[in-house]
């Protein structure tokens, strides 16, 4: 849990209730393992999917069970359903379910062209976009920016200036 947010269950909650729920989506088992390692700092429950369709199913199950994912890290180029379509489906499900907060999504792809980066972040609401091969330090920076791990900029922000 070093660097991760302190997790403390309140009355009526188990520790499992408040831990981060993470979904890693990539058709490469090796890439999933790399992401898994980079996300170890979060210390949450990690599930994996090998394509977009499987990811959408897991996302829907979690949403219906009332335990949506806190973070999805997803590739774009995958068989059956690509990351763009999968994320669009996830956003539609959230809208239909009326969830107040959208799941934070980091797109992680070898595609580094303006079209894919813009589409993911402006049309589908991905919070960050990393290109492969990724530097674990960049993943850490992204987790900080998404307020999933402690950020040195927290506290005293206004007073700094």
């Amino acid at each position, binding site marked *: 849990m070093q660097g991760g947010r302190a997790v403390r269950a309140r009355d009526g909650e188990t520790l499992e209730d408040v831990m981060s729920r993470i979904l890693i989506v990539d058709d490469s088992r090796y890439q999933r393992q790399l992401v898994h390692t980079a996300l170890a700092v979060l210390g949450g429950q990690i599930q994996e999917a090998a394509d977009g369709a499987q990811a959408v199913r897991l996302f829907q199950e979690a949403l219906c069970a009332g335990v949506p994912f806190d973070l999805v890290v997803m590739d774009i180029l995958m068989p059956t359903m690509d990351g763009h379509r999968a994320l669009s489906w996830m956003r539609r499900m959230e809208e239909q379910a009326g969830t107040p907060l959208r799941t934070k999504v980091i797109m992680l792809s070898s595609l580094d062209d303006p079209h894919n980066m813009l589409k993911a972040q402006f049309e589908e609401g991905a919070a960050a976009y990393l290109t492969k091969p990724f530097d674990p330090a960049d993943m850490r920076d*992204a987790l900080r920016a998404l307020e999933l791990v402690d950020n040195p*900029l927290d506290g005293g922000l206004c007073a700094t200036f």
Partner: protein
Amino acid sequence: MRNFLASHPDLKSVYLLVAQGGVYERPTLVQTVLGSCVSVVFFSRRQSLGGIFHALLPRSADYEKGLPNPATRFRYVDAAVDAVVAALVRRKTDLSALECKVFGGAGAMFQGETAVGQKNVLAAYEALSRHQLRVTASHVGGDRGRKLVFLTHTGEVFVKSLRPAGASCRIDIGDDARAAAGK
């Protein structure tokens, strides 16, 4: 950040305003705050050398005629990318190993300016692509401004999303943007 600076007395600290930027040879902590504006962070790991700008508008040709104006080069995203890349080339930076990251481009903070952020980000992606530079990470869009801190000698970037407009820490980038654009 104050504690950080206190523990690193050799570190220079710079607060980047709209339409400012540069390449920093000495270890420097660069801070800036972004709304619809865009910052691109450049880092050469081999030289421990960093560059950054804070630009307001997407393309210089849409606002200024003639040759690029050195006085306004960091006002426009495309001209700012050109300026930082030129400065890095002068320092013999290997551009093929350069790490570039794009931040900012928030949309819904300012009424009537929802598309400006997206246009700024697109201009950054296109300008970097024109120089065959790869974007390793980006954190753009959304409806919240961002505070960004960049350590030029390590390449580390700290980003914090700001509270929505209306909160006590609100920053009226809209007025700054209009002033810097000379409108």
